[in-house]
């Protein structure tokens, strides 16, 4: 074994490097891609190994990877889509992974493609790292490394562009908006090849499981949630950025790894902009895992941890994010297109003490939740509900015109991308 069992980081290169790890450095660190004597990868064995490893999707939904790969419908050869869009503005883990370890991502894409019998692997990447992925793919092509062709494409901008069906529609039709399910992406009928979408981090883990096996993968993390994961830590910490941690690491420890809090913290936003606000004092001792956060009503999501200092206002930050999410709606579904702006306006009124109606807000949250062509409206509702739960005591002070502060913590792109 070239990479130590409980050694971190796994996906990211140890220490700081000026640029991406090249093919030679990549193979030196991890060893060669598994190359069976028959010349063809045993796809079923790899999928079974991923199942034993307990690998789950790192794009936010946490769906068991082996089950997803095994569920490809019979018919025309499928397409493997590696999703490196990362439309979530606060999250940087996929960009950093692609920028620092592009070869590992491509390994995973090719292995997954072979495992499902795909004719090609399409790697959709954030524009900032397109050049790096092109270079990495070219290196592999020169070395004739892959049995499956790799196609690198630039992702569309915008928050919903990272949604699985939106990515597929983007590469097929140039429209980065979600499509209806059914048909499920893995069963789209005789006219279109089925598409299997995997987050780039998930594929990077798969590339290491293929080399070192399930037990190695499980040597960090918890029995229920094994392996390592990438997290983006931002806000009131001294060294914000992307870290690789074992699943289940206590949140306080994660913040310490990011240089520790730079101010007393009142709350954390966990998961992403579809995630949850939690009280800092309650959360710091908890493991960063689905099981550890479940009773707080939160989860690891897309691996985001944002630290809200005492001098900032959670309701104000939520209002900014919800207004952004409303603007990022694909506009295809009524409840999202009309409901989210209405909810955003009401949250803004709440923050500005302009006579918001909590009954109306609650009504709209109930009407918008779960109704749409994708999870966008539900995610926004979840965020607002967690804000009302965590910062509920401050609602009345806002009505009286008092606010903790206007410090900006969460990045919200200006103007919108539509």
């Amino acid at each position, binding site marked *: 074994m070239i990479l130590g069992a409980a050694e971190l980081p796994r996906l990211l290169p140890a220490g700081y490097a000026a640029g991406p790890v090249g093919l030679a450095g990549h193979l030196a660190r991890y060893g060669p891609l598994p190359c069976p004597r028959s010349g063809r990868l045993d796809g079923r064995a790899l999928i079974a190994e991923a199942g034993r490893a307990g690998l789950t*999707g790192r*794009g*936010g*939904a*946490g*769906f068991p990877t082996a089950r997803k790969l095994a569920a490809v419908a019979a018919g025309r050869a499928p397409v493997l889509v590696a999703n490196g869009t990362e439309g979530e503005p606060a999250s940087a883990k996929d960009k950093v992974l692609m920028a620092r370890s592009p070869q590992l991502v491509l390994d995973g894409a090719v292995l997954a493609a072979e495992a499902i019998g795909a004719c090609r692997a399409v790697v959709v990447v954030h524009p900032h790292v397109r050049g790096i992925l092109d270079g990495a793919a070219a290196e592999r092509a020169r070395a004739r490394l892959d049995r499956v062709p790799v196609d690198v494409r630039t992702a569309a901008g915008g928050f919903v562009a990272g949604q*699985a*069906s939106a990515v597929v529609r983007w590469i097929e039709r140039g429209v980065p908006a*979600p*499509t*209806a*399910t*059914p048909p*499920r*992406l*893995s069963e789209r009928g005789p006219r279109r090849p089925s598409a299997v*979408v995997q987050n780039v981090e998930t594929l990077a883990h798969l590339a290491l499981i293929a080399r070192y096996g399930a037990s190695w993968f499980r040597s960090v993390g918890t029995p229920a949630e094994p392996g390592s994961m990438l997290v983006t830590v931002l806000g009131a910490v001294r060294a914000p950025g992307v870290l690789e941690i074992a699943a289940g690491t206590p949140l306080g420890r994660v913040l310490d790894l990011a240089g520790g809090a730079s101010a007393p913290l009142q709350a954390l936003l966990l998961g992403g902009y579809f995630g949850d606000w939690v009280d800092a004092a309650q959360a710091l001792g908890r493991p960063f895992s689905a099981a550890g956060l479940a009773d707080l009503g939160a989860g690891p999501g897309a691996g985001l941890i944002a630290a809200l200092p005492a001098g900032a206002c959670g309701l104000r930050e939520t209002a900014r994010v919800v207004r952004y999410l409303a603007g990022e709606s694909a506009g*295809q*579904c*009524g*409840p*999202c297109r*009309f*409901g989210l702006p*209405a909810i955003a306006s009401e949250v803004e009124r709440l923050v500005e003490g302009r006579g918001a109606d909590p009954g109306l807000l609650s*009504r*709209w949250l109930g*009407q*918008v939740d779960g*109704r*749409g*062509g994708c*999870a966008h409206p539900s995610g926004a509702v979840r965020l607002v509900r967690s804000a009302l739960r965590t910062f509920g005591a401050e609602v009345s002070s806002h009505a009286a015109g008092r606010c903790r502060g206007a410090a900006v913590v969460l990045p919200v792109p200006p103007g919108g991308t539509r």
Partner: protein
Amino acid sequence: MTGPVRLRVDFIACAGRGLCAEALPELITLDDWGFPIVTGRAVPPRLLADARETVRLCPKLALRLDRRHQTSDS
């Protein structure tokens, strides 16, 4: 169809015309923006024929009767 049957709305196709809520008020109401809120419960057998008729008359073909429980792609 045997087994529990549910009404489902394809919100991407739905244009909020509201015919479904008029036709089947027992199971469908409209939200504050005119879009259908469909009960998550199974369609009772006595309303099955009405439900099929409601599915037919949606001008955007956005309504479906479904038997299986769907899981979503992430």
